[in-house]
Structures are given as C-alpha cells and as structure tokens.
C-alpha cells in the first residue's frame, strides 16, 4: 500500500466517522423538525437536545478532518471538487453555520417564540446540509467533477439523478442512524413511551433508507456506469454487509430489543460508504483523476499519516472520555 493509498483510506475513515457521528446530529435535527407542535414535540426534543448538546461540536470536527486531509494529501482533488461544486458546497457551508448557531442559540434562550425560531433554523438546516453534501458526493461519484479550477458544470455536476439520489439518501441515512441512537438514549433514560416513539420512526426510516439505497443502485446503473460496474462486483461484499446489518436492525427494532442496534445501524451506514469508496477506486475523481495522480508531495503524505497517529493517541482517549461521560448521563442537563 502506497502512502497515497493510506491517505485515501484515512480520508474514508474520516468520511465514515463524520457520517456516523456528525450525520447522527443532522438526523437528530430531522426528528426535531418533525416532532410536531411545541407541546407534543417537547419530550422528543428534550431527548434530542440532551443527546447531542455535549457532542455536536466534537462530531463536527470530522468534517474539518476530511477537508484538511483532502487538501493536504490530494490538493488538486480538493481544488477541483470545491470549485466545480461551488453551489452545493457553499449552501452546505452556510447550512452548517445555521445548524450550529441555531442549536447553540436555542440552548441558551428562553421564551417560546425565540426558541422556536432558533429551533426551526437548526432543524431545517439539519436537513438541507446533508442533502447538499450528499448531492456533491453524487456528483463526484458519477464522474461529473473533472480535474481543474471549476472545470465541471456548476449546475449539472450535482443537480443530476445521481446527485439528487445520493442527497436524498444522505438525509434518510442521517435520520435513520439518529433514530436508532435515540432509541438507546430513550431506553437508558427509562422512558418506555419515547422508546416506542423512536422505534416506530426507526422502522419507517430504515425502510425508506433501504428503498432509497436500492433505487440509488438503479440510478447509478443509468447515470454512473464506472461506479455501478464496480459496485456490483468488487464492492458487492460491502453492499451485502450493509443490507444484512440494515435488515438485522429492523428485525431487532421490530421486536423491541435495542441491544446491538446501534452497532448494526452504524455498520449499515459505514458499509455503504466503503462500498462507494471501493466502487470508485482507484479514482479520486472517477475516470479523470486517480488517487496516485491526485496525491501531493511524498514527504507531506508521510506527515499526514504521522499526524494522524498523533491524533489517535491524543484525541481518541479524550473523545472516549467525552462520549462515556455523555452516554453515562454524567453530562446531562439538570432537570
């Protein structure tokens, strides 16, 4: 494995972690949005708030991680992607500002009107941001982002069947993962009613996500031949793992057994991301720029890996501490 390959794997690890942690925070925003009026939605919103407040900023850093690895290890890929996908990525960046600010402001505001306004901003941008990020990925996967400064079409590079499909899938997958996590949170909080509430929604979200994933494969067959070709061959094991995990989660949730659903739900989403990675291998930008061609200076690539090693040593124990304190209820809001 070359240093460039290793950096590409690192990038995919970052994308996976962002999808599993940051994605769940976006998904929680989806459930916040659909929780109903102020009184009806009060309890689910309180659970969502408690679950993501201590962790969303840390989870958000995985996106920065992906961007930094991309521009350090694969500079031309970063420049090509960001300049061609100017529209969806500008909208995603603005959505990230609105999501973070809306959530942080709601947390420290009182007064129903103010909280509703900030909450609406948080929730709506939580749905739009993953859509545009997904649309950008769909554009890349379908080979519509060539190498160069804004070399692809500003609109059709992402507003196409693959982009729309992956954008919708991203929204659904975020909602699905979040819901599976929230079942566990409700369970630990000893709130059986809320557990049932999120269980019903997890089943629905799981079915929708599965259906979108299947439809997505059909769209890719028409729209992204290179990625499709490898998806049904080299990447097939990942596709199958995702399907098996997804079905297992549905079965467990339907029987009301939350144990293990978190891990399986995360596995279903992670497997899709790795299926995509394998499917577009060895390309960074399918059929125009390979991982090797996009790679920056060799010395820098080595340092990217070293810095990542330092990060693992420093960040992982701290992050585990945070997540354990959070999950153990030691950082929960006073009631």
């Amino acid at each position: 494995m070359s240093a460039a390959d290793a950096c590409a794997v690192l990038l995919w690890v970052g994308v996976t972690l962002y999808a599993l942690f940051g994605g769940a925070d976006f998904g929680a925003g989806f459930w916040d949005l659909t929780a109903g009026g102020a009184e009806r939605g009060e309890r689910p919103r309180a659970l969502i708030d408690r679950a993501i407040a201590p962790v969303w900023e840390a989870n958000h850093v995985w996106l920065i991680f992906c961007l930094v690895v991309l521009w350090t290890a694969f500079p031309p890929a970063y420049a090509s992607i960001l300049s061609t996908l100017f529209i969806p990525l500008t909208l995603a960046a603005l959505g990230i500002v609105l999501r973070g600010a809306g959530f942080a402001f709601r947390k420290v505001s009182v007064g129903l009107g103010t909280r509703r306004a900030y909450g609406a901003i948080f929730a709506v941008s939580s749905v739009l941001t993953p859509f545009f990020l997904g649309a950008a990925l769909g554009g890349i996967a379908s080979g519509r982002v060539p190498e160069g400064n804004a070399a692809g079409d500003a609109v059709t590079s992402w507003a196409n069947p693959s982009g729309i499909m992956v954008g919708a899938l991203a929204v659904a997958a975020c909602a699905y993962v979040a819901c599976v996590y929230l079942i566990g949170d409700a369970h630990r909080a000893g709130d059986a009613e809320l557990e049932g509430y999120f269980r019903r929604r997890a089943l629905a979200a799981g079915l929708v996500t599965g259906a979108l994933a299947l439809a997505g494969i059909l769209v890719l067959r028409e729209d992204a031949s290179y990625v499709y070709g490898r998806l049904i061959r080299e990447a097939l094991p990942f596709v199958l793992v995702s399907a098996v995990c997804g079905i297992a989660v549905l079965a467990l949730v339907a029987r009301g057994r939350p144990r293990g659903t978190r891990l399986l739900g995360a596995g279903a989403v992670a497997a899709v991301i790795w299926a995509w990675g394998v499917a577009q291998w060895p390309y960074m930008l399918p059929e125009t720029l390979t991982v090797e061609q996009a790679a920056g200076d060799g010395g820098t690539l080595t340092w990217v890996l070293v810095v990542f090693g330092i990060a693992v040593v420093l960040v992982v124990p701290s992050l585990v501490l945070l997540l354990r304190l959070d999950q153990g209820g030691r950082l929960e809001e006073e009631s």
Partner: protein
Amino acid sequence: MNSLTMLAGDAPAALTPARMQMGLTLGVHIILVPLGVVFPLMMLLANYLGLRRNDADYMRLAERWSKVAAVTFAVGAVTGTVLSFEMGLLWPGLFARFGDVIGIAFALEGIFFFLEAIFISIYLFGWRRLSPWAHFWSGVPIPLVGLLGALMVVSANSWMNQPGGFSIDSAGNVTDVDVWSAIFNDAVAYEFPHMYVAAFICAGFLVASVYAVGMLRGRHDRHHRLGFLLPFTLAAIAVPIQLFIGDFAARSVFQDQPIKFAAMELNTTTGPDKPEILLGHLDEDHEVSGGFAIPGLASILSDPSTGTSTVVTGLESVPPDERPSRGAVNTVHLAWDIMVGMGTALAGLSLWFAVVWWRRRHRLAEMRWFLRAAVIAPIAAYMALESGWIVTEVGRQPWVVYEILKTQDAVTDAAPGLVWASLTAVIVLYTALAVGTVLVIRGMTRRWRGPGLDDAAIPYGPREGPAQRPDTPDPGGAP
C-alpha cells in the same frame, strides 16, 4: 477558463467578490478568536481562585464565563468551518498548488481544535457533576490547545507572507516539500506573538467592559469588581508587551516585505531620511497628500542603529503589477495608523490603571471617567486587531503567496455571478449571526441579573411561555 481576460491583463471578474467574501468571513472569525483563545484561560483562573480561596464570587464568574464561552466557541467553530470550505471554493489555485505545503499546519490545528471542542464540552457539562478539582483539571487543556491551534493557523498565514519549505522546478511544479520549514517559516516568530498577545488585549478589555458598564449603572458588588479586575489586569499587562512585539514585527516587515512596509509608511521612493507620515493618502498622481510628516522618524524606527541614514525601500522600486494598487496602499496606511493609534491609546489606559492601582486612593466604583474609558476600550482593541490584519493581508497584495503566486491567479474560475451571489448570502447570514449572538448573550446576562431564572433545560418547554395548541402542525414555526 478566463484566459482571454487574463491575456488582456485584467483581474478575473470573480476576484473582487472573492476577496470581499474572504475578508468578511475572516474579519468576523477574528472577532471570535480572542474569545476562543483567552476566555477559557480567564474562566480557569477564576475557577482556580474560587476553589483555592473557597470564593463563591469567583466560582460564579467562572461558571457564567464558561457559558458565554460555549456560545462564542460554537459560533467560532462554524465560522471557522466556512473558512475551510472557502479555501477551495474561492482559492482553488492556491490550494491545488500549495495544499501539501501548508496543509500540515491545518491538520495539526484540526487536532488541537478537536481537543478544544472535547474538553470544552466536558468542562461545560461537568459543572456540579464532576468533583470540583477534577472539573477544574478537565478545563486545563483548553487554553493550551487553544494556544497551539492559534499558532498553527497564524503559521499558515505567515507562510503566505514568508513562504518556505519547498522548491519550484523548471516546469513550475512544487517539489521538495519540507512541512516543518513551512510551518516554522520566517514570519511566524513575529506574527504569532503579535496575534496571541492581541487576543489577550481584545478578550480582556471586552469582558472587563461588560462589568464596567454594570458598575457605572450602580452595581458595585464584589462580583462586578472581580469580573472587571481579572480580565482588565490581563489586558493591561498585555498592552506594554504588545508595544515591544509590534515594534519587532514592524522592523521584521521592513526587512522581509519592503513593499508592504512602504505601503504602511506611504513611502513612494527609495532613500534615507524618510518621514513618518501620520494620516494622509496617495493622490491620483501617486503623491503623498495631507497628513503630518515627522521628519526622519520612519528611517529611525526601521533601524535605530543607523538612524536617519537608514534606507527605506519605496513603492516605485517595483513595477506597478508587483505592488498594491493606490487604493490598497491608502487602505493599508490608514489601517496602520489606526492600529498604532489605538495601541497607543490603550497603552495610556493601561498606564492610568497602573497609577490607580499604585495609589489605591479611590474605590474603583468612584472613578467614573476611568470606567467610561474601560467601557470603550474593547472598541479600540478590536479596531487595532482588525486594522492589523488589514495591514498584513492587503499589504501583501497583489500576492497571495508573497512574490510567488498572485491572488488573481489563485481565484476560482466559477462564474463571477455565483461568487457575487454567495457573497450576498454570506453578508445576510453573518449579519443575522452577529445579531443573534449579541441577542443571545444579552439575554443570558439579563437572566443572570433577574430573580432566579436559570437557563431553560427543555426546548420549547411550555413552562417558559404559553403552550402551543397540541395540534399545531409546524414544529418550529416558519423558518
């Protein structure tokens, strides 16, 4: 590609909105940086004093500051994210070529930022849930990683001023990257301390001013006095240190970037015995117009050992396309004057504070003119900070990487209309963000003064206001 416009020698049409958007988003982010870097330190100082002396006033300050720090950290996190998108959205020409040279600095910054986010969360949500000293120690990494993170970001900026750690081969490709020489480039030794100490001045005066307002309105309790004294003392100590660092930085720019220095000093021609020009501008004939000239002072300050015989390089020593435009020169010179002027005014305020402290004749609450000055001090501090960055960034033009890559060759080839649209969206969004941040923090401080109302724990909880009808379909009101 806009090769046609490039051949005609014009700047690409997207350059203006791209520079405006970058300037706006950086200018907003920089407001939050001092709070991110220094607020945690003040909060921990108060926490430490509170625990050590069993002092409830200090503990209350620490807790409230941590809640405000959480809001400003969140806003800083999202505005910082926008910047990491903009590097590619607006400047693909810079990152396609040099991403692997300066990227490691950002990667390290990413790690430090990650740690900062983690420990801020633990500290913030750990109040009364962790044991007091464990809670204090959970916050100790925050100012440390804040310092290192700021070092990495400023290092990336100073690399643009003094690029190093790579070679360019005959084909124009970047080779032989040495990331450590890039990080510890020639400008980081003066840019970083200048910014780090500026953070103390801005954050210290800003927090102190809130309590100065309270004291002027008749709130003379110990809470207000401590809340004023702790941050104000930090800032007042930082100001004289900053005068020395600033002088060192200016003389380094004189040596490293003579054209930027010429713009700062409004100096058109190379020669000795150059005057220091206060205010004034270059007129349409590129002659200095207006202002007050102090004979010989620019030469003396540039190198005191050679005095007035120090030769100072002028703008006209390089071709027009390798120096800032007339408008840029005037901007840089005005910004330079503002920075130095505000710095001098703040030095006066710090001296006043030292005298007050030394004589101990009056109670702080009685010194209304001093408190009034303290109220407006953060305005001066932030004007100096923003002006300083304008000097650095506009003074580097037309280069984005000094003497290697021009800004106009780095800008996106996206349609100029798109960039203008994105600039408009950013202006609207950032205005809303600024209003929201101020309203939210003001709401928090009002609640703290109110009768026992603490932060609401449940979103949309009905107990804070009249409940909505249960069948209201829209969850959060119209967006």
